[in-house]
């Protein structure tokens, strides 16, 4: 799928014109970003900040690679099948700051996100879902290997 700009525009069907614009509307202040949660260094005080220890749930479809060729970019995807899901978070237990990303899911948006995160070393990756004020989680380990030829 060629992605150079011109062919990107020519691409038919559901593709769309891209319009790079300056900020169209005044910079909204987002609902408060939990800055302290992003700075917290341990799982325990993170759980205090997030409001309790999540209960493990099989209704979270959490995809992570078993072995990551490079910890700098680890693709993860989370889909919550728990009704009333309003928040999804990604935690990396062994990272200096375990909280990596947080997503607020309003009505009408599917509780499913994919992104790529940095995993400092082999670690448990935890997807935390908030639904109807309760916390649920799914945990998977990703091995991070010594990349390259060691040179």
């Amino acid at each position, binding site marked *: 799928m060629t992605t150079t700009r011109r062919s990107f525009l020519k691409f038919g069907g559901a593709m769309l014109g891209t319009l790079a614009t300056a900020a169209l509307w005044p910079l909204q202040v987002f609902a408060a970003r939990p800055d302290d949660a992003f700075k917290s260094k341990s799982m325990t005080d993170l759980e205090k900040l997030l409001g309790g220890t999540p209960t493990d749930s099989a209704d979270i479809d959490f995809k992570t690679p078993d072995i990551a060729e490079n910890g700098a970019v680890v693709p993860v995807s989370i889909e919550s099948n728990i009704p009333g899901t309003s928040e999804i978070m990604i935690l990396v237990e062994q990272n200096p700051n375990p909280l990596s990303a947080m997503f607020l899911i309003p009505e009408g948006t599917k509780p499913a996100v994919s992104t790529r995160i940095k995993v400092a070393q082999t670690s448990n990756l935890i997807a935390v879902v908030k639904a109807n004020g309760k916390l649920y989680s799914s945990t998977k380990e990703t091995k991070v290997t010594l990349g390259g030829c*060691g040179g």
Partner: protein
Amino acid sequence: MQITLNAHRAWLLAPLAGACLIAACSSEKTPEAKTAAAAHEIPGAHSAAHIDAAFEAALQSSFHPKGQAGMDRLERNDMQRACSSAEGPSTEVAQAIMKAAQENVKFPADGNYLGDWKAGKALASIGTGLQYSDDPSIPNGGNCYACHQMEPDEIAYGTIGPSLTGYGKLRGQSEEMLKFTWTRMYNPHAYNACSHMPRFGDAGILTEQQLKDAMAFLFDPESPVNQ
């Protein structure tokens, strides 16, 4: 004292070295390389001599010194010259390479082959050393994991060399086995002419103590390689 191997006995060690031959660091004449080169003959517009001359000139104009890597590193000793081709050396040249390698091995001055396996474990996964991007004051790594499997539960290992898992447990610590393994690391060409393995002792990459530490990592019953 160095191992005196007469030709008849040499093939006895070959099975051990053979693991290397068969596995990966086999010398040049792998069938695959021979047929591939032949099948790929492109009608030569240039004589070998012309290519060689152009090559020497290109070599000098295509590199420049940087950090600890000077232009001297483009020069080759007899072994490197003999091993720089698709077909590889003739049998006599290969024997000469092995003989020269065996004769120049320096065994530990105090006769003690085994150092600290923990230090050996560390240098086994350090891949830096002697590159122009490396700090010359930092000891060179051995990078054994680049090519060998060692500890059973370490998944990031290479497959150019044979697996060394359980090395000491399997072989014991007889004088001959310590000598053989030391030689294998000091100068691999002693048993396998044109081996892909660096001459860790002969080329001064690792110090005598580092070689001892690597040997301990392989032989020491405490070492995770033997768990």
